[in-house]
C-alpha cells in the first residue's frame, strides 16, 4: 500500500481553527464516515491520510489536525508552510471562534501567500437553536477574505463530502481547481462526479521510488 501511495500526488491539508470547533470530527467523518459524541482533545498535531478519487486522477490527501489552543500557535507555522489547502474551521454556535477566523486566515497568508486554497468551514450546523453566526454573515465574510466557504455538520454528516469534493477540485493541477479559483468559490461547487472512496489504489505499475 505504501508503495502505491508513494506514486500518488500528495497534497497537504492543514486544519486550523479555535479549540473544540470540530476539526477532528470533520476529519473523522471524512476518513471513517462516523461521528463520536466525544472526542479526545488533539494535543499538538495529529496526522492522517486518505486516498481520494477525483474524476480525472487519484490523489493522496495528507490531513494535519492541529490543537486549537492559542498557545499551540507557535508550533503551527511549520505545518502550514508546504500545505496546499488550509481548512479553517469555526463553530457556528461560538461567535468568538468565528471572529478569530480572520487571524487564522492571516496566519496562513503570511506563511503561504497566495499559494494556498483556504476553505472557511462553519461547523456544527445541526445545533440549530444555538447558532450565533448566520450563513449570510459568514458568506459575506468569506467573500471579503477571498476564501471558499461552506457550512457543515460533522455530526449529521452534512456537507462533509461536498467540502472535500470542493477541496479536491481546488487542488493545484486540476482544471476544475483553476476554474474554481477564478470563481472565488464562494458558492461554486466542484464537479458533480467526484468519487470519494477510501479503498486503496491497486499497486501501480511504476512502483520504483528510487
Amino acid at each position: 500500500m505504501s508503495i502505491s501511495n508513494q506514486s500518488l500526488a500528495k497534497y497537504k491539508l492543514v486544519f486550523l481553527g479555535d479549540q473544540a470547533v470540530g476539526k477532528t470530527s470533520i476529519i473523522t467523518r471524512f476518513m471513517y464516515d462516523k461521528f463520536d459524541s466525544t472526542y479526545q482533545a488533539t494535543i499538538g498535531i495529529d496526522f492522517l491520510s486518505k486516498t481520494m478519487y477525483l474524476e480525472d486522477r487519484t490523489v493522496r490527501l495528507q490531513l494535519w489536525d492541529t490543537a486549537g489552543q492559542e498557545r499551540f500557535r507557535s508550533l503551527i507555522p511549520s505545518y502550514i508552510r508546504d500545505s496546499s489547502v488550509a481548512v479553517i474551521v469555526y463553530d457556528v454556535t461560538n461567535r468568538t471562534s468565528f471572529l478569530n477566523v480572520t487571524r487564522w486566515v492571516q496566519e496562513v497568508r503570511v506563511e503561504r501567500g497566495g499559494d494556498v486554497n483556504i476553505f472557511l468551514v462553519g461547523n456544527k450546523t445541526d445545533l440549530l437553536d444555538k447558532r450565533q453566526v448566520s450563513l449570510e454573515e459568514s458568506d459575506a465574510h468569506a467573500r471579503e477574505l477571498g476564501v471558499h466557504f461552506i457550512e457543515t455538520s460533522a455530526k449529521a454528516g452534512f456537507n462533509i463530502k461536498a467540502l472535500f469534493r470542493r477541496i479536491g477540485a481546488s487542488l493545484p493541477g486540476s482544471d476544475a481547481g483553476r476554474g474554481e479559483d477564478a470563481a472565488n468559490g464562494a458558492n461554486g461547487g466542484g464537479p458533480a462526479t467526484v468519487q470519494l472512496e477510501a479503498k486503496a489504489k491497486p499497486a501501480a505499475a511504476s512502483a520504483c521510488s528510487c
Partner: protein
Amino acid sequence: MAEEDEDRAAGRRGWRLADAAGMFAPLVRAAASAGEALAYKGQELSTTIEESANSAVDLGVRQVEGVLRDIERKVSDFQRRQRELDALAADDQRRQPVDIQVGDSVFEDMPMEMRSRLYCVIARQPDLVDSLRGRLLRCLSSSKSSGSPRHPRSQRGGRAALHSSSSLGSTGHSPHQRQRRQQLDLMQAHQQRAGSRLAVGSPGGSDSALSPGGTGGDAGVAGSAEESGEGSGSDAGGGGSSHLSAHLDASRASQAALFEAMHNVPWSSGSSVPDEAPECGCSEYAALLAAPRGSALQRCMGGLESVDDIIGRDLGRTFPEHPLFMEGDGQARLGRLLRAYALRDPETGYCQGMAFGAGLLLTIVPEETAFTLYCRLMDEPPAGAGLRRLYAPGLEPLKLELATFELLLGERLPELHAHLASVGAVPLLYASPWFLTLYAATPMPLHFSARVLDVLLQSGCDGVLLRVALALLQALQSDLLEHSDFEGVVTALKVVPLSWSPHAYRAVLDTALSPGFVSDVQLALARDAVAAEAARVVRPPPSFTMQRRVMRTDSEVARFEAELLQHRSAASPCGGPGPSDARSDHAASARLESLSRVGSAGVGSCPLSLSGTPSGSLALGAAASLANLSEIGELETLLTELHLIPGGGGGGGGSQHLQHQHPQQRHEAADAQAAQQQLPEQQRQPEQQRQQEQPAQPQPAEPQPAEPQPAEPQRRQRQSITDILFDSFKFF
C-alpha cells in the same frame, strides 16, 4: 382409404362449424353481460382498491413509523449497552493488575489500590517517600561506566498477594480489609526476599529509621549503597559490612513504615479512590477554589477567552471513554483542579495537555490529594518535577526538550534517527503529545502513563519523560525502519503500540528506568548542548519566524514585567534534574536564554548542528559551551546582540503595543528572539497592525535587503534583559 378419411374429416368440420355457430349467439350474449358486469365490478373494484390502498398506505406509514421507532429504540438500547460495556471494560481495565514503581523497585501485577494508597502517602507524608526519591534518582543517574547495568528490581511477590486479594474480594470483604491483607502479604514477601529479620515497622518508629539522604538498596547494589547525597550520581566505594547492614536495616524499616502508612490510608468501602485527608478543607486548594472568579487571573493567558472557558472546553474531551469522566462529576472535579492550578500559577495558566496529567491523578486519588500531587509534578525543582516549563506560553521549553530528545535519539539510535529525519517524522509531531500528556493521551494504556507518573512523583526528575520516549522508539525501531515513507512511519508510531502486550509495555518502562539507559550526565549534557545551541543560533532560518499574536492590556504588561523581575532574581534552577550546582546555574541561565529566544528550537527540522554528531563531539561541544557561556558572559553577549535589534516595544512603548518593524530590520529579526515579532512577508505588516488593533501607521514596504543591515538609529532601543525576556512572554 384416403377419400374416406377426407369425408370423415369434412363431416367433422361441418359439425363443428354448425355447432360453433349455434354456440356463438349465447357466447356473445354472455360476453356482453360479462362486459357489463365487469364494467360495474371494475368501478366497484377500483373504489375498493383505492380504499384498500389508502388503508394500506396508512398501515404502511404506521408500520414504518413503528419500525423506525423500533430501530431508534434498538439503536439507543444498543448504544446504552455499548456504553455500559465500555464502562465495564474500562472498569475491568482499572481492576487489571498494574505495575507500580516504588523507589527503584517495581511491584508487578499489583491492584490499582496500591497506587492510590502510595500516592496518598506521597501527598500527605512526603517525608516517608524521601528515601524512595534517593533510590530512584540513584537508579536513574548511574551510568554504564559506574556499574553494571541492572534492571529495576522486580517484586513479584505481589502476584500471590493479588490472588489472595481477589479471592477475598469475592467473599465480600471491604477494599480496606483486602488491601490490608494484601499489603501484609506484600510486605512479608518483600522481606522474605530481602532476607530480613526485621519486624514490620510501626508508623511511630518510622521517622527515626529514615536516613536523611535516602537508603541503600539490597545486597545486589552493595557497591553503590553508600549515601552521597540525593541524586548526586556518584557512587562511593562500599563501606564496611556492619555499616552496610545498618543501611539495609534502615532501608527495610523505612519501606515498612511506608507500607504501614499506605495501608493506614483511610478508604471508605464502595469508593473508587481513598478518602480525602481529614485536614483538607482549610488548605491552599480550598482557598483557591474559594477565590472569586472573573478576576484578572482569569485572563492570565491573554487572548480573547478566559482560562475558565478554555478549561471548560476540554473537560469533556479528556479521557472521554473513562467512566470517571463520562459523567459530570469527574469532569467537575477536573475543572476545579485545573482552575485552581491556573490561579496558583497564572504564568502557566492552562495549556492543553495538562488536563490529562491531572485527570490521571483524579482516577487514582481524591480531588484535593490530586491537586497536591499535581502541584508536585508541576513545581520547579527541588519541590517538584518542574513540568510546568513544558507548558510555558510559547512552548519554547517544550521545543528545547524535543530538540534534546532528538539529540539523544541521534546518539543512541543513530540509524533510526537518520531514518526518521529522512522521511520527515520530527519529534514535534509524535513526541510532543507524549510529553504534554505524560503519555496518557496516546496509544499507550493508562497504567503505562501511571508508572511514568510514579517515577515523576517520587523522583522529582522530569528526565523520565525523555527516557521513556527513547525506550519507546527503541522498542519501535524495527517496525519504523520497515516503512520508507512519512505516512507509514507516522502511522506505525501510532498503531504499533496498540498491539503490544502488557509485557511489552513493562519491558519498555523497565528499559527506560534501567540504570545506564540514559545517564543523568548524558541528559544534562544534551540539554546544555541544546540550550547553548539555541542561544548560539543568532540567525535561525527564516522559516522560524513566527507571527506574534498580542492581545493584552497594560496591566498584563506590568504584571508580566513584575513576574519576570521576580523570576530573574529568584533565578530558580529549572532546567531539569541536574543535581550539580554548577549545572543548575547554567541551566538557569540557559533557560533565561531560551526564554528570550523564540523560534530557535527545531520545529520542522532540527536546527542543531550537533544533532547528528557522535557523542564524543557532543560532549566536547557541551563542554565548550559550558566553558564559554558563563552566565554573565552569556547575558552580556545577549545584551550586546539585542541592543542592535529594534525592540518589540515591550519595554518602553507608551502604547504598549508592538512597534512596527521596519522591513530593513528583518534580517536582524532573524535573531531568534526578535524573530517573533517580525513579519516575513511585506504585506504582513499592515495586516498585523490591524490585527493588533493598533492605530495603523503602515510603513512603506521596502524590498528586503539581500544583506543584513544595521538597524536604523531611531529604531534602536535600549532594552534591559527584562524587556527582552518579557518579549518572549508577550507572545501571548
